[in-house]
């Protein structure tokens, strides 16, 4: 079957969206897990600072999340805009 240029572009955009979000989700997932693991350790060592440590963990995770959100944005751009 012959594939038209526009069709190929659309297919590539859909595949790109899946790969962008799929691969982009790996890093933040692992990184945020690592942050949370260390937060558990820190609370175990110093339970009195649980509030501060939870806040620190959440801020750190939010930053680590950013690349996941970039992936999501790129995936949505590929799906709906490009």
């Amino acid at each position, binding site marked *: 079957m012959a594939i038209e240029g526009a*069709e190929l572009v659309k297919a590539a955009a859909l595949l790109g969206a899946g790969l962008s979000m799929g691969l982009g989700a790996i890093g933040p997932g*692992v990184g*945020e897990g690592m942050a*949370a693991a260390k937060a558990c350790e820190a*609370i175990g060592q110093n339970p009195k600072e649980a509030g501060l440590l939870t806040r620190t963990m959440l801020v750190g995770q939010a930053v680590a999340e950013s690349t996941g959100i970039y992936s999501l944005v790129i995936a949505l751009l590929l799906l709906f805009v490009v």
Partner: protein
Amino acid sequence: MTLLGLDNLTLTQTAAYVGGAAAMGLGAIGAATGEGFTASRASEAIARNEEHAGDIIKNMLVGQAISESASIFSLVIAILLLFMDMPDPGIVKAASLLAAGLCMGFGAIGSGVGAGLPAGRSCLAIARQPAVSGRITTNMLIGTAVCQTPAIFAMVVALILLFKPAGGAAAFPTSAALIGAGLSTGLAAIGSGYGGGMAAGASCEGVARQPETTTAVTTTMLVGQAVAQTPSVFGLLVSFVLMFRSFPESTALSASVGLLSAGLCMGLGGIGPGIGNGMTAEGAVRWVARRVDYSGDLMRIMLVGQAVSQSTAIYAMVVSLVLIFVV
């Protein structure tokens, strides 16, 4: 409609054999690595405490047997693929068989490696605290059993793909949807299987360190593992949608690629959060064993941390569902 100029039976058989090879080839990676880890830790444990070599070897073998089960699932699927009847050969059936092989092959990796971690660390734990070796082995068995869940999900999807009649489904995009279904559960199982193993490993160590905290440690492990399994549940969900939704016939390339991409997106996207949730659970379990009086606080922070780490798997699921239902 034919593909590559092959007749239907040749195409279907080719797909089945490639699928069978993928199921066993990929499926052997995890269990072998996990069992090797177990054996290495058992050697270390015997070097530290040779008087209890018998207990340690027994524990190693039990642990390895469970870790092996993921690759046994692969073997079963591979043998089925090599020798099954093909009553309705065609492009859809070919895709379905290839997908079954890929699903089981990828799906066995995480559970195999994951189950090896608690098996190995429980050998070291017995060397350290031989008096509670029974409790350590029980804890290891619970942990490794939970690690197998993602591999079981992969086997369920593989079996559905093997025996699902092709019926009158349109070759395209249904065949792409089926391959996507295989990849979604198969790849997402990698992270959950490995993550569950990390949590279980820490709990074996914890029981040896403070045997009186066993209940709290096991509970935290199970909660942590349950959360670490969620990405593979998302993978399973996307697979079921891809397998059982009927798609209108379309030979447009984008229709097929979109469904394949939906499966890949959820599959790949589940890997990271599964491992991350496992790491978090490992940290929490380790510290519950040391500071059992703060187990409530530790459980809370573990769940909050895991929830955040889960978010990217949820984004991946959203993008997959958009690819299936909207685009």
